[in-house]
């Protein structure tokens, strides 16, 4: 985690720490939000596995401790993002994640046709997959919290049976696990993307190749931000 900017970058030209070759991708606040959310999610999933998977449950036991870790990591999962709302960089990126441009549909078409070259998949600061992932997980976490609270406080809403809450919680837990594995696989495939999340900076060449519509957006996004605030 303490490698310097560029030390894991693939090419010699990209390893120069000069700012002219590097582009600011994430602010410190955004990286803290991402890391805190990631650790909480990991804690939540590992404790869930210790409660749910028989071999792990037999190995670990300590059911009350695992329940407590699971409940509190789950309930605090949205906190980093909520605190992140105090950061204007985080709010600006939320707006970017929300809005779908014409080239995002082109990106999705390229995925459907299994075209993998960066030229076939134009993207702004975030590509269409990242946008859909962010929106989906932002909806899935509240559903998990709601059904989880129904199990935690029995009889909170008597018209929803505990069995129903558990069913939705279980099914969605597997969906989240699969989607998160996909999220992490994408990150492991792209060292420069991980570097961006770790140090805040990426190489200009990477940005131009994988997020071709990002660096040029400058004025356009300022306009849209003003329009949003108006």
């Amino acid at each position, binding site marked *: 985690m303490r490698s310097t900017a560029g030390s894991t970058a693939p090419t010699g030209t990209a390893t120069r720490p000069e700012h002219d070759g590097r582009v600011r991708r994430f602010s410190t606040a955004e990286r803290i939000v991402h890391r805190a959310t990631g650790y909480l999610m990991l804690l939540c999933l590992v404790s869930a596995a210790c409660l*749910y*998977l*028989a071999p792990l*449950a*037999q190995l*670990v*036991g*300590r*059911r*009350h401790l695992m329940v407590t870790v699971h409940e509190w990591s789950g309930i605090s999962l949205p906190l980093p993002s909520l605190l992140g709302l105090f950061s204007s960089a985080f709010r600006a990126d939320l*707006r970017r*994640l*929300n*809005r*779908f*441009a*014409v080239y*995002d549909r082109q990106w999705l078409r390229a995925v459907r046709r299994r075209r993998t070259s960066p030229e076939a998949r134009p993207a702004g600061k975030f590509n269409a997959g990242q*946008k*859909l992932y*962010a*929106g*989906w997980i*932002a*909806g*899935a976490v*509240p*559903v998990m919290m*709601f*059904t989880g609270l129904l*199990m935690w406080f*029995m009889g909170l809403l008597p018209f*929803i*049976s*505990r*069995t*129903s*809450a*558990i*069913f*939705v919680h*279980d*099914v*969605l837990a*597997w969906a989240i696990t699969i989607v998160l594995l996909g999220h992490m696989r994408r990150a492991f495939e792209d060292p420069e993307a991980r570097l961006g999340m770790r140090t805040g900076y990426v190489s200009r060449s990477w940005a131009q190749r994988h997020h071709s519509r990002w660096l040029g957006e400058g004025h*356009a996004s300022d*306009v*849209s931000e003003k*329009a*949003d605030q108006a």
Partner: protein
Amino acid sequence: MAGKPKARAGGAPVGRRAMLGMLGAGAAGLAAAPSLQRGWEGFLGAASQIDATGLTGLLPNPGGFRYYSVVGSVPHKDETNYELQVGGLVERPKAYTLGELRAMPQTRVVHDVVCTDGWRVEKTPFEGVKLADILDDAGVRSAGAAIRFTCFDGAYSESLTLEQARRSDVLVALNMQDKPITHEHGGPVRLFVAPMYFYKSAKWLSGISVTDKVVPGYWEERGYAVDGWLDGADRHSDAA
């Protein structure tokens, strides 16, 4: 809506739609859960018959039991070292070996096992000694009003009122599904309280103590109901 200029500037709010769509799917899932679950259980029941890998056990609401323990590891006990202590407010405190319990009259109770966590195993046969017989053997003193159960995992405990404990569908169970109860299922001896949720059926039973009032058990100190009646259980019947 003032959506038009925004839409031109930033595009359609697909992220928000994905989020709202997922929230809607969650609500629909809750509404449809009872019927979805019936179909799912039917499918799993059929699938687990031909599933040699055991993977169906990982899916939501699989058929069969799940392993719960409140401690890190539980000692194994068998004929050579198992002992059931009966004490408290009784005339004749006593310790039973596994062989002595097996030599007593055995009762068979077939009932659904239902866990508060949503899983259920239908029509599960248990065999063992009626708790009422053990209490009669020991002779409950007039001050006795409840039972406290302790377990050789060193942490778990449970409770019943004396009236509940004397029901004929409450067993000190030795067999489950016509086989001696394995360690994973709480063997060699566990409690089986048929009309209540399964957390009342303490595993690894090692102590029965008559008390003058109900002492809440392990999960009951952590928010569970002291009386764990199943929905629709006949709470006062003695006939099982």
